């Protein structure tokens, strides 16, 4: 069994999803887009209270890939600019470490962001 990893998430500053750094996670606060687009984004997983990780940028710079609910979804900057997140400070430190560690963090992040705890987040 994998050792349990206790992560306490401290809230960081609010930022647009597009401004996260590679590997950084944040918790979605709100989507400042018209209702229909908001609905659309929420249906594919970008729901307030859920955790998102900035996975990588496309080779040509845009779109960027975000990890939400364990799914990798690419959004263009024009969309990601309007999704506001609260930066997760702790996550940012941990993902800097080596790959094994990163897997642990990811499992934890995914679980918290997914079914396990979306409702518990502040």
């Amino acid at each position: 069994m994998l050792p349990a990893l206790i992560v306490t998430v401290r809230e960081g500053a609010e930022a647009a999803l597009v401004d996260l750094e590679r590997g950084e996670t944040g918790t979605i606060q709100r989507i400042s887009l018209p209702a229909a687009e908001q609905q659309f984004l929420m249906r594919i997983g970008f729901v307030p209270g859920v955790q998102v990780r900035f996975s990588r940028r496309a080779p040509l710079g845009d779109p960027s890939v975000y990890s939400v609910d364990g799914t990798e979804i690419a959004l263009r900057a024009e969309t990601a600019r309007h999704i506001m997140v609260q930066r997760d400070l702790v996550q940012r430190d941990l993902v800097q470490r080596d790959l094994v560690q990163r897997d642990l963090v990811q499992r934890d992040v995914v679980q918290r962001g997914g079914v396990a705890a979306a409702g518990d987040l502040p």
Partner: protein
Amino acid sequence: MSAILSSGCCDTPSGPLLAIGEKDPTASGREIRTVALIGPPNSGKSTLFNRLTRLRQKVGNYPGVTVEQRVGLLAGGGHKIRIVDLPGVYSLTPYSDDERVAVDVLTGKMDGMPRPDAVLLVLDVTHLSRHLVLAAPVIALGLPTLVLLNMADVFAKGGGSLDVLKLAKELGAPVAMVSATQETGLDAVNRFLRQEHSQGLPALLPVLQDLPQSRKWASQVGRRIDYRQHLPSAWSRRLDDVFLHKIWGPVIFLLVVGAVFQTVFGIGQPMSNAFQDLLTKLGQQAAPFIPAGLLRSLVLDGLWKGVSSVLVFLPQILLLFFFIGLLEDSGYLARAALIADRTMRGVGLNGKAFIPLLSAYACAVPAIMATRTIENKRDRIATILIAPFMTCSARLPIYTLLIAAFIPDRPVIGVFLGARACAMLSLYVLGFLVAIVTAKLLKSSVLKSAASPFVLELPEYRTPTWHSIGLRLLDRGKVFVRQAGTVILAVSLLVWVLTNLPLHNGRVPLLEHSAIAYLGHGIEPVIRPLGFNWKIGVGLLTSVIAREVIVGTLGTIYGVDPATHSLTLQNALHQDLTFAGAMALLVFFAFAMQCTSTLAVVRRETNSWKWPVVQFVYMTMVAYVAALVVNQGLSMLVK
């Protein structure tokens, strides 16, 4: 009654594969005749539908909306059970046509469709938090529902687990772990559907309109059923480090695209040609067995020619779909779309349009069928509408003929680029430019996308299976032969009738005296400004079957065999076409929609005659105006 119905197939850490929840045992049972298959997009619903029906399915259209209706028969013994594949939806709140259709079918309000007796709800177990939201409104409808947690294999492999029995209790519906791609757990479906079902009391589930609220409910359920998210394999991430690398990403992308293109042309074209020869030979072999005269001509020049012109597309179509299937199933297609998006955005399209448009350089038919990966309907239609502007291989015979006949073989840039190559290249560029302009026009007017930002899901990399690709090839091949086949056959027969009537003293008339020649004469005033006479007109008329037909027609008109005396045909053309007229004809062919197969497939894919008609009229207009400008302009210059 709480019982475990099945165990076996694949081992999930959580134990039983099918569990049944609470049901009212006193209600009377009834047999299932119709079952609806519902699930979110990307839940593997279509794969499951194909597996359950073994492709015994009918595709149609729901009345009033352009939503595809797929109905199939459940494979296996017992009484007939119809499966209705509903469009992929995230909720039953009717926001889109898709959701409206789903709700209408499930509530029995859809015209000409009985209310289903049961529901198969497909959810991707690896994305349960997101997909579970759909379970509440579907189960609350009160129909006997079997919840299928798809992708069980990936989920188990990634270390995911959940308590199926607990979930069944939570939902008040039986739950089965399945894998549509591996075909595991599917016996649960048969068992569920062949069983008598009581019209039980609907479970008390919160049907929430508000998504964040529904998600909260889903996460609470997730905790109660001990849901443990699977870990995406580290392999996918490592592969993406290469395939989406700043430098290697685009390099590999170009290599892959180049290899596909090269193979389709390098193998597909000769394959098509060889197949064409084979079909022609078969026709010739059969000739002695048919009484000479009108009947033989009808069978060989009408029917067989029509059948061959459909079949001859098959090698290229299947080859292209083999590659597209390979790219799609492996997961690379999504990465290619991600890389291409930046460039495609310039014309108002998105990255998913790239591969279809590229395929259109071989043949517009598979390209249009490949647009199915574009979820945004407006983007998809825009892509379908511009695909035939790409220089497909059917244009090459007439291009080669006219260029060889009218353009001198002179060097333009040293020895590297001759005038002929230059002309050919400009035709490719011309088609591409008009496609871009058309896309821009469409996307800034009638097909302006509203309220759906571009999103692209990157699935995990997987090894494609022969089985899955084979099934798809069979499906696409069938669709093409059936849909395009019937239309092409009808048009070929019409052209045959027009070429062989009116009878002259009981004999087939010479082409000059046939009905089609009269039609050619009839359109002569319209095409004269383009520099075309009635003979070219006849060629244009017959080439509505397929572009390359014009070469054969002109050959017949000039009484020479194009295969052996192409030089004579080239010379003969000089008597009827000026240089300006020939260039106008080239440009006309670059833009005009002379391909019945494409029109038939567009109708099939857009589910209405509206788009093929719009496309035909638009392309013909563009072709006419462009040819007019070229002919008039060049004529003036030459003077």
